[in-house]
């Protein structure tokens, strides 16, 4: 019945009409204020309850992406002529601040649910069977670039060290204090490579010497460079960007 009164007041040319016009203006202003509040997104996004909803949706999106992800669907591979030159440098620091790892002392440390945790030296890693891929790196910022990486298939490496592949996560710690973590399904994907070469040359420091985990089914920031330790675990390891709000799964 409330509707009817409002309708009648709109119909009649009386002081009631003015009230209704005022109400309508109030409504419209209310909508504009709401829109403005949204547009000054910073404050709204910082609000704790809003942040909780957004975080919850991001976890929901992790699950949705895991469902969509197919272990057999391959990322497109490209011809040598499609390689982007120069391949862009990207990190949370500038190119002048790139970490230079000493290859002679280098050892890859293994931790967590792994049978043989013996650390690996570079000559040992280089001696493993190698494979190459020319794939597209897609950055969370939107740009993309095609590059060629070579290394050992990660699933082979996991089998070799006796990693428990029923575990949920693999976390990576890097020499430049970066960190990230991935799901086991992606780790076992045939195109996920532990790479030591870029464009047929030993990885230069700016592309992640001594090794970069190349995952063409994930966004660029999920491809850690300068890896010094990896942990197979069921406890969510998080990551440098993930802890700040970037979506954890970030598949592509």
């Amino acid at each position, binding site marked *: 019945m409330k509707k009817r009164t409002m309708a009648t007041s709109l*119909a009649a040319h009386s002081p009631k009409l003015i009230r209704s016009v005022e109400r309508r203006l109030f409504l419209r202003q209310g909508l504009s204020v709401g829109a403005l509040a*949204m547009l000054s*997104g*910073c404050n709204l996004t*910082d609000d704790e309850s809003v942040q909780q909803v957004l975080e919850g949706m991001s976890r929901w999106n992790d699950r949705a992406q895991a469902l969509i992800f197919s272990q057999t*669907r391959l990322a497109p591979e490209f011809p040598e002529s499609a390689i982007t030159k120069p391949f862009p440098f990207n990190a949370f620091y500038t190119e002048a601040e790139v970490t230079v790892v000493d290859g002679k002392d280098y050892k890859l440390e293994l931790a967590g649910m792994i049978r043989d945790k013996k650390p690996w030296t570079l000559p040992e890693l280089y001696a493993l069977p190698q494979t190459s891929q020319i794939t*597209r790196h897609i950055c969370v910022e*939107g740009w993309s670039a095609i590059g060629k990486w070579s290394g050992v298939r990660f699933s082979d490496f996991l089998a070799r060290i006796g990693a428990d592949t029923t575990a949920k996560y693999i976390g990576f710690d890097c020499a430049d204090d970066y960190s990230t973590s991935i799901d086991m399904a992606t780790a076992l994907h045939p195109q996920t490579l532990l790479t030591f070469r870029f464009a047929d040359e030993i990885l230069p420091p700016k592309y992640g010497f001594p090794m970069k985990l190349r995952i063409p089914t994930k966004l660029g920031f999920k491809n850690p460079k300068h890896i010094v330790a990896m942990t197979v675990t069921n406890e969510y390891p998080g990551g440098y960007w993930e802890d700040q709000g970037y979506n954890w799964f970030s598949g592509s």
Partner: protein
Amino acid sequence: MESSQTHWVSIHPLVVRITHWVNALAILIMVTSGWRIYNASPIFPFRIPNEITLGGWLAGSLQWHFAAMWLLVANGIVYVTYGIVSGHFRRKLFPLTPRAVWHDVREAFRGKLAHEDLSMYNAAQRAAYLAIIFCLVVLVFTGLVIWKPVQFYAIGQFMGDYEGARILHFCAMALMVFIVLVHILMVILVPRTFPTMITGRARRAS
């Protein structure tokens, strides 16, 4: 239900009103957060002023964008299903000929466009509303390809893969925002259409 002395007619069904406003909210979030995502790596030689974007920084905008996309799509499925099953689309948005659209757009510019009977959309309105639906469909599919270029690689082959999808996604957004702005301008010019989209009812034109 109608009283005899006041000629109030039901214009917009409840489903249409609810989905209209949910859609308006979802689009506002998607567009303003999308602008901030665009700014992280612009594909054209301009940026969107950060002041009119949502999210505060790239990660925040991505969170908004990938949260509101579910609202947009779920709401869109309800609306389109209702529109087809109930005959709402057939009754309100068709028939539509280019001739009629051209005629009505010209009339609109002369300020003579007829929209007396709010239950009937003129040809310019029908074209605009259909164009918004079309833009949204394009936005959803190009969006899927940008979101998951590997998993939805097959869909991407219709739009120039990932890079083509980014350009199309932006163009569909621009066209949709333009039509929405015209739509809002029209509501300001014919204000009695505004309460109708809330209450669903309007006085019948005599």
